[in-house]
């Protein structure tokens, strides 16, 4: 009854060839690293080192706090200069707590204690170790991986899906990783399969990466891991769409994939898990694609976390023209950087410097109801209707049209011939609705508290009255008794 193939989608020009031919190179250490305490979704990590401390590479410098958080490790050996605030890689440009690390140049690892046979560990133990290595979703969402694995241990998992889609234009870090380090990725995948006790493993890779597909297929031989090419169509790398493409299953609205017995992890996450368990190395660097029309030498680099984007860009390439926009992540869902004075973090899949021409921005025009947004929406929504309602302040109606099913992939904004910032409107409306919900909750709470107070005051007044009455009665009785006595 329901179609099995992914609906909608757009085919942006990939621009992959800018960077996908260049092998991963190691980016040298900077003079100073700015290691952020907030490199993941959830509570920021809490520092366990003090300024002046000497740390070794891979040493814990901040432990996770709260249910959803991830620890942070030293990207190299050196001295902690300060724990201070620094601009966060976020469009707001707000500050976040960072540990400033001065490398000693030795790049000396601390004690690496990999288990002798990671596959012999219990699933829970694997999860704990993945969590302790500070691994988060490397596709850009940066959700702490251990939390995700743990959550899915509770609901039984049929299928582990490994996302090698890399559907964002320009990015080729996962492509290169799969081409060059497929064996370790497969080891990581098997570890994750063990961790969630999944019955089957599917690796989805977009068919615009034939080299990565063959490398992975070769590495997967005999492991039971199935490597499956998927059509190159944005947003194929979106969790729900990849699941639908590979299994034909639709994740019901308002429910997690794990509830349907499916869990999705990124290839780079699997790679990080293998490094953590087979080599004992926590997550201290990642592959970053440097690309965009304004960049002279696009390529892929393994960059120590905490390297400043400005330093990375200048040392690795430089500009051939003034970039019109700087982006961390992919051009469809990545974030715009206010400037390059921000560190590389665990979710930094790419740093892009795009030209005016590449952005192709024009001022928004009127909607001509062409329906391109409807055709391109992978979720089957009516972006034009939702946007019209949001513009006239009818957020509730937009919500009824499925605003909360929107995955913010940006396909509609990308394709709109009138350049209407649809995704922007949806993000605004989602935020506004969450605010309203919060305000309503607050008001509700206030009301409950006020009612309780009223009842309490009423009760107190009654008690007081009763007490007074009792006293009066007692006094009257006393008086009467006295009178009687006197009479007597």
């Amino acid at each position, binding site marked *: 009854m329901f179609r099995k193939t992914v609906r909608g989608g*757009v*085919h*942006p*020009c990939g621009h992959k060839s800018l960077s996908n031919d260049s092998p991963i190179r190691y980016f040298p250490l900077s003079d100073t690293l700015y290691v952020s305490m907030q490199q993941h979704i959830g509570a920021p990590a809490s520092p366990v080192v003090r300024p002046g401390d000497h740390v070794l590479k891979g040493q814990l410098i901040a432990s996770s706090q709260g249910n959803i958080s991830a620890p942070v490790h030293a990207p190299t050996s050196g001295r902690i200069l300060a724990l201070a605030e620094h601009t966060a890689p976020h*469009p707001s440009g707000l500050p976040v707590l960072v540990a400033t690390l001065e490398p000693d140049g030795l790049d000396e690892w601390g004690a690496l204690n990999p288990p002798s046979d990671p596959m012999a560990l219990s699933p829970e133990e694997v999860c704990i170790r993945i969590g302790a290595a500070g691994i988060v979703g490397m596709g850009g969402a940066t959700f702490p991986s251990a939390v995700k694995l743990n959550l899915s241990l509770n609901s*039984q998992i*049929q299928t582990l899906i490994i996302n090698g889609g890399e559907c964002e234009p320009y990015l080729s870090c996962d492509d290169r990783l799969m081409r060059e380090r497929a064996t370790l990725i497969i080891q990581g995948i098997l570890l994750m399969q063990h961790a969630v006790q999944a*019955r089957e493993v599917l690796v989805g890779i977009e068919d615009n990466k034939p080299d990565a597909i063959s490398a992975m297929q070769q590495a997967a031989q005999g492991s039971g891991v199935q490597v499956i090419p998927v059509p190159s169509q944005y947003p194929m790398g979106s969790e*729900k769409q990849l699941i*639908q493409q590979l299994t034909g299953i639709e*994740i*019901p*609205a*308002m*429910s997690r994939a794990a509830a*349907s*017995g499916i869990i999705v992890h990124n290839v780079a996450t699997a790679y990080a898990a293998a490094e953590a368990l087979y080599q004992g190395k926590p997550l201290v660097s990642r592959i970053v694609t440097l690309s965009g029309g304004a960049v002279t030498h696009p390529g892929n680099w393994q960059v120590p976390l905490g390297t400043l984007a400005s330093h990375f860009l200048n040392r690795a390439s430089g500009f051939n023209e003034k970039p019109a926009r700087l*982006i961390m992540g992919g*051009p*469809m*869902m990545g*974030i715009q950087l206010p400037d390059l004075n921000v560190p590389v973090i665990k979710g930094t899949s790419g740093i892009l410097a*795009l030209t005016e021409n*590449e*952005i*192709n*921005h*024009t*001022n*928004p*025009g*009127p*909607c*001509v*109801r*062409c*329906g391109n947004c*409807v*055709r*391109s*929406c*992978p979720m*089957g*929504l*009516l972006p*034009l209707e939702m946007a019209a309602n949001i*513009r006239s302040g009818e957020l509730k109606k937009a919500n009824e049209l499925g605003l909360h*099913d929107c995955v913010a992939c*940006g*396909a509609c*904004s*990308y*394709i709109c*011939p009138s*350049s209407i*910032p649809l*995704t*922007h*409107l949806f*993000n605004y409306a989602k935020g506004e609705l969450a605010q309203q919900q919060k305000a309503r909750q607050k008001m509700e709470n206030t009301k409950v508290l006020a009612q309780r107070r009223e009842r309490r005051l009423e009760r107190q007044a009654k008690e007081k009255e009763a007490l007074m009455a009792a006293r009066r009665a007692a006094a009257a009785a006393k008086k009467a008794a006295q009178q009687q006595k006197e009479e007597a």
Partner: protein
Amino acid sequence: MPVSSFPPNHGPHIHNSTGNTSILQNSSAHLPALMLQVMLALSPATLFSFWAYGWPSFILWLICLTSALLWESLLLKLFGKSVSKHLKDGSALVTAWILALCLPPWAPWWLAIVGTFLAIVIIKQIFGGLGQNVFNPAMAARVMLLIAFPVEMTQWINPAPVLDNMPSALTFQFPDISSSISYIFSSQALPDGATGATFLSDIKMQIEAGTPAHIATAVSSSANQPAYSVLDTGLGLHSGSLGEGSALLLSLGGLFLLWRGIITWQAPVGLLLGIAIPALLLNQASPELYPGADFHLLNGATMLAAWFIVTDPVTCPVTARGRLIFGLGCGLLAYLIRTFGNYPEGIAFAVMLMNSATPVIDRYIQPRIYGRSRRGQALAVNNPAADK
């Protein structure tokens, strides 16, 4: 309103561009580029008509385009909108072009100016401008003109190649450019020998007079009326409005738009089926009363409507299924009006009727949301691993 901070500082940071995209790309980049391609698609059929109908038709087309731009600028100024910005979208030009194609090729100048006034001012701008109009501006303007000026709207000059084969060719010749200007602006009556009825009205009248349809469509009815043939009609060698000419060239333009991803196939296919199916059925049932599907597909504004009018995004539904229903409705209504109504051509009426049904279609025909049933309920969670 939240849309004050342009450009937005989060994704997508790139926009679809025409330059380096694959053919599979399902749309063009920005609105002006889109409109330009529509005009490009209209060009072959229009150039053919200029050749077939001579200078007066070109001048009429020019008047339409110029006056539309003037009306648009005036209204934009009145409404306090940026004239330069909105004129550039090209929508007024496309509307005017399509309206020109709906007029008799030698119509007087004032008909064009009144027509663009109706289309641009009344139908489009007063309803709120681009994207807000309920009715297709060209169709609504044509309907109003047809009702208000029935004589001027039904003066069909014979195309030059047809005229050359007629006895009147000796006495009547197409004017050159300067006399064409004076002709269009002086509103002279067309010489009798130069005009002919469209096939739609000619055959309709003959059938009503008792001639069996299969004979009416095979034999010429008078000296100034060529006989209907599939080839000649498909090529455009028959009388009619400027854009009713070449079914072949109009379809070429339409296929170009389809290939470029500017239009979708649902509405055109719907319209063609909506006309062809009842025509085929009734023709099978009684061939002497009802001409065949080829006659209805090649004549009148069928092809113009299929490729350039029911595909107007503003006034048709937004979903694929909605567009198919819309097209089918337009086709069926057009066939019914042609066959059983008073007018020989009913497409403009059919389109207007379906335009008014568009909000209803959009209300009821919506795509199913991922993870939800058609009614919007979340699908049931089903874990294959938990079952075992």
